[in-house]
């Protein structure tokens, strides 16, 4: 075996230039596979994470009518305190409850329709986009915080700023208008402009008080460790709320995101295979050449009694060695190019376009182990298969014919 290895190694470097070029092709191919996949995965992961922070969470329980009528008329049937107690007993990484209703925000000069979100700041922070916004001023500090957070864009539209008062108006369950002044305690910059325009966030208890719905919320939210695995979570949520609440996972709540996840998994494989196919022509070509050059030598070996399977093995070994070296360098180059980009690739010049796709304008490449393994395995397996034909042909040479052959 050692002899075979040494032999294959030597054969590989008989024609240094050819091997180097082939190696270059493999490296570029492998780099492209991994780099491109890290980029697209980064985009999708971010899209999903952003999406989840908006939904928010992996699983939600709401009144069945909330989808059609997202107002204070569609409160979660259960009391907030009861649901919270049951959610707390579950061993979930994150949960919260929220009161989310439409409202109107007014400054001295303008009025705008907004989504009012009453949150429990301590619980919500880990779940929603609140976790990674930059804020001027402060975040909310309690469920009864009487301050309000609004987006930068909304603040500009309203011609108001941090520290000023705004008036919030909303509908109560008995259809009268509830209104109150709130002080802007924080102005946030969000990744997507739409969020900055439409969200006004205050303490959950404060909003409950304003609307006259003490201890009631519109949604209970539960998040697990992995957004891909939510079915258990949905069952847990079901146990925490009464049967007339509707429990939905993010996959059901946002078809587009769920689809993107599926499409991207498919895309990763397709991309790897396409690149490999483009590569395979060169690989087979190289092997064919290598065999062709050595026809006489192979004939000699065969006539000296070497078994055809050894010839086959040797050629395969050469091919695998070539691929392995290519993979090692390719992986390394990919890693080296992705590393410096992990702080984010800024695409703000096309921000509005990215927003249409539901993506923020900074992409963080996501080098996923599975994808790297997938790329390597595909290259090795398909490379093995592609090399079989030339290697098999070489082992089938008729020694006499081969020896007579002159190039």
């Amino acid at each position, binding site marked *: 075996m050692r002899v075979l290895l040494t032999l294959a190694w030597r054969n590989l470097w008989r024609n240094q230039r050819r091997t180097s070029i082939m190696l270059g092709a493999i490296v570029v191919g492998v780099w492209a596979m991994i780099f491109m996949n890290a980029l697209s995965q980064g985009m999708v992961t971010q899209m999903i994470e952003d999406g989840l922070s908006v939904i928010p969470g992996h699983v939600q329980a709401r009144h069945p009518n909330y989808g059609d009528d997202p107002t204070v008329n569609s409160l979660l049937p259960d009391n907030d305190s009861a649901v919270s107690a049951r959610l707390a007993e579950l061993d979930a990484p994150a949960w919260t409850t929220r009161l989310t209703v439409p409202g109107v925000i007014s400054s001295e000069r303008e009025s705008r329709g907004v989504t009012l979100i009453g949150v429990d700041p301590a619980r919500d922070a880990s779940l929603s986009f609140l976790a990674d916004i930059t804020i001027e001023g402060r975040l909310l500090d309690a469920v009864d915080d009487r301050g309000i957070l609004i987006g930068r864009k909304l603040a500009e539209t309203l011609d108001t700023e941090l520290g000023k008062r705004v008036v919030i108006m909303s509908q109560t369950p008995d259809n009268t208008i509830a209104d109150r002044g709130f002080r802007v305690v924080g102005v946030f910059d969000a990744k997507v402009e739409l969020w900055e325009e439409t969200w006004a966030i205050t303490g959950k208890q404060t909003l409950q008080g304003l609307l006259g719905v003490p201890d009631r919320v519109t949604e209970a939210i539960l998040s697990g460790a992995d957004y891909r695995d939510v079915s258990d979570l949905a069952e847990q949520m079901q146990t925490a709320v009464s049967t007339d609440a509707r429990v939905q996972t993010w996959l059901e709540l946002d078809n587009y995101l769920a*689809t993107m996840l599926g499409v991207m998994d498919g895309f990763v494989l397709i991309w790897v295979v396409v690149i490999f196919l483009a590569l395979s022509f060169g690989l087979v070509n190289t092997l064919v050449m290598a065999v062709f050059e050595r026809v006489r030598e192979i004939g000699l070996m065969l006539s000296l009694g070497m078994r055809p399977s050894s010839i086959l093995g040797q050629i395969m070994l050469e091919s695998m060695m070539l691929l392995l070296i290519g993979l090692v360098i390719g992986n390394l180059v990919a890693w080296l190019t992705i590393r410096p980009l992990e702080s984010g690739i800024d695409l703000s010049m096309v921000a509005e376009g*990215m927003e*249409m796709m539901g993506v923020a304008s900074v992409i963080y490449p996501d080098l996923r182990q599975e994808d790297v393994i997938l790329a390597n395995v595909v290259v090795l397996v398909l490379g093995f298969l592609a090399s079989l034909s030339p290697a098999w042909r070489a082992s089938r040479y008729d020694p006499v014919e081969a020896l007579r052959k002159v190039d």
Partner: protein
Amino acid sequence: MDIVLRLAWRNLWRQPRRTWLTVGAMVFSNCLLVFMISLQFAIYDLMINNTLRAFSGHLQVQAPGYLDDHRMRQVVDDVIPLAERLRQQLPDADVGARATAFVLASSDDRSYGIAIYGVEPAYEPAVSSIPGLVKQGRYIEAGDEVVVGSVLARNLRVEIGDELTVLGSGRDGSFSAAVLTVVGVFDSGVPDLDRSIAEMPLATFQDVFFMRGSGHHIVVNAPALADVDDMSQRVLPLLPDGVVLPDWDALQPGLQQMIRADMTSAFFTYGILVVLVAFSVLNTQLMSVLERTREFGVVMSLGLSPGRLGRLVLLETLMMGLIGLALGALAGGLLTAWVGSVGFTMPGMEDMAARFNLPARLYPDFTLATLFAGPAVVLLFTLLSAVYPALRLRRLHPVAAMRSA
């Protein structure tokens, strides 16, 4: 020259398997490029057309500042006569006048804030896809009629024949209200449109919202996207003072950017394919040059210049590249044509398509440009990658070359 050609052709087939494998790499990449580029541009065209045709159009005559604020008072005066004049003077353009108001739409038990558009029922079908997407009932004709989006109809729980009350502010800010009869429900498949838009006859709109003959914009559609600039130049002199004419890029700034973002990633993909082909060609041609070192030495010692030998190698590569281009374009064209006839779809495309104003099935079509742009680049890189082997010949020393095994 003829003899050089023949020589190159013969050399190419000395190693048929190698040549075919190299050509195979080109055909594979070219075929893929033709298909992907065709599909990509089909998507862009649809995206632009569907988005623009859906509503906003190629050009809009507006009051200055309306684009930023959409204020009720920023009007185009005498909008119907102006649209009529444009229609007469620009027979190849589609023209339709509109007015908009943000109103509260109420059925018996529900209310939603929507945008209601006053449109010219006779001309709207030419400038918007919405009239053609009426799935129940019919499009508006005149009087107190309204068509609503399917989601809005569901949310309001209204059906054909039901009454819809709209409540808003008129041009002078005064209280405006109307009771309209739902005559049709459209389903564009774009949730935003289906949820928040209703259309009524412009004349009725002007009456209800005290527009005094004015409107908010006139859509002018050129025959094709490429004619928009030209059309813009022809429309401008026909306009009265005090109006502006933003084009689709100003009306929908996200669209161009989305396409640009997508193109960047697409071109990265294509670039990788081309580079891989180039490596393949480089390898093949280098091998073929090295193999023939002795032969080249002989020829050179007979007085043939290295330059001409280099050209021979490039000629061989060109031939190989042309075969790859022809077969690749053919295969790509056939693939595109086949997919174009059955329609392209993939799992999950429906959801993605809805997001980007696309139908669930795409019918890519190739043009000369999409058919040959990709393969031409491949050919270019093929030739470039043969430059190195060709240049190596210059360094060839006849005697040393002859001696080499």
